[in-house]
């Protein structure tokens, strides 16, 4: 494999939400031009990780660098520069339902690419819709779209301002198998056309192996595995094995059950304590 430059460098990233350490000192390098897929169960902090990248959440500790430059979302000027380099596809699309499809896709251009003329912006909107294979729907309202179409429009909005890194939060969750594979194919096609860095969060192993150049598995706030789809098949890590097989028995469920048991015990103790008073 040719040597690629590091695009995003994450060092010691920690995030605490509701008194729980969701991310616990994550170290990760994402390479220029690759598709890096983060897998893991729901609620292990995959989405939190990419939300820290794009500045929707701010890390409690640790640093994120983009092209060797530290990202600082507290600093308005620096954060605007960083945001121009990122595009994000949200889990539910997060399309503005008060606007039409065209206005939704125009929105990032208006705010991130103010230097373009109106004609150039319009041309980019139409091209983005063509790229996601939905030409000519720019005048529809968001509410009239199906789930798969919404994902595509959201994808068009994420790539229209030509970001250097596109983040995908669960691109195929909630879609039927056929739409899932068309979205996966679309991601691969876009990858060829745009040649940018993709970071995808998913818990769908099939999608991960299909679109990913490298895969990382998040467990309990940290990466417990990084490797190619082939490495994923051949790993000795019992946690990864259980997740990939989708088995109901294994170290992940054992720890989960122990955790549930301790929560139940605590709540029982608390209830007994209340009764005593």
């Amino acid at each position: 494999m040719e040597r690629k430059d590091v695009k995003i460098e994450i060092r010691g990233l920690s995030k605490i939400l509701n008194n729980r350490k969701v991310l616990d000192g994550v170290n990760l390098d994402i390479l220029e031009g690759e598709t890096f897929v983060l897998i893991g169960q729901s609620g292990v902090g995959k989405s939190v990780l990419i939300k820290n990248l794009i500045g929707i959440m701010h890390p409690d500790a640790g640093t994120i660098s983009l092209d060797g430059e530290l990202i600082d979302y507290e600093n308005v000027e620096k954060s605007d520069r960083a945001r121009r380099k990122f595009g994000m596809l949200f889990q539910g699309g997060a399309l503005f339902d008060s606007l039409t499809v065209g206005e939704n896709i125009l929105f990032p251009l208006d705010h991130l690419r103010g230097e373009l003329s109106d004609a150039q912006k319009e041309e980019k909107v139409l091209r983005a819709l063509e790229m996601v294979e939905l030409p000519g729907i720019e005048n529809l309202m968001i509410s009239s779209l199906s789930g798969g179409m919404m994902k595509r429009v959201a994808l068009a909005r994420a790539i229209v301002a030509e970001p250097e890194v596109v983040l995908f939060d669960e691109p195929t969750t909630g879609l039927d198998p056929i739409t899932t594979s068309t979205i996966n194919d679309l991601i691969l096609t876009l990858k060829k056309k745009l040649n940018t860095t993709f970071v995808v969060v998913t818990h769908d192993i099939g999608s991960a192996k299909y679109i990913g150049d490298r895969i990382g598995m998040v467990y309990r706030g940290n990466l417990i595995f990084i490797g190619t789809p082939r490495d994923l098949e051949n790993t000795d890590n019992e946690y990864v094995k259980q997740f990939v097989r989708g088995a109901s028995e294994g170290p992940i469920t054992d720890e989960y059950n122990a955790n549930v048991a301790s929560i139940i015990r605590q709540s029982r103790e608390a209830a007994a304590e209340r009764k005593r008073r």
Partner: protein
Amino acid sequence: MNSIIQRFRDYLHDIGQFTLFSIEALRFIPYNLRHPKELFINLMGIGLKTMPMIAVTSIFYGLIMGLQLSDALEAIIAGTSQFIGSALAVALVKELGPILAALLMVARVCSSVTAQLGTMRVTEQIDALSTFAVNPMRHLVTPRILAGMISLPILGFLSVVVAFAGGAVMVISVYGVTPAVFWELAQYPLKIRFVIQSLIKMVIIGGYIMLIATYQGFKTKGGAAGVGESTINSVVTSSFMVILLDFILTAMFIMFWK
């Protein structure tokens, strides 16, 4: 005991959050005056579209007031219903018009603003805004607060005029007071000071209830149930604050500007 302390701390935390939110929102007023696109959109939604509702409610409000007050006054001393003109003019300008308009605005606008922003929050639309380098406070909150500050005085003024007309219709048609006498007596106790004080009250109350509505929308959590919860909080808190702020401001006017 611990839970009481915890709740008190949560309460203080909430007040702190609201204060920071308010400061942040007011900071973007100059920007929104320079780029008034969102402000105009919200003026339409908050102000213009509330006008028919205010007008219809106020006319019946006026008719009822005219009828009830004249009836009461006639029962005490027959032939005195022309003085209702004075009573209506002062009461409507000072309190009834602004408060009616403010409460109707809470019912129609605060609820919808909170539900809309709350839904935007839980569907990540607010997060999406910040990924396009658009500050959600600047784009969603400040224009609505400004629109509230501008709309409520206009709506209140409309309410005063329409309700007064309704009252006049009743007193003139049912009790046979001549329009000239009614008009004369209505103007007599009014002072320009009352109008200015009333306008100041409405600017402050209009901004404040939109601040509550947007704050509740922004801190929404947890799906449809969360949006419902926020909307209740928004309507209850802002209805109460309308009356409380009115009381505080009226007391201050009476103490310092009489």
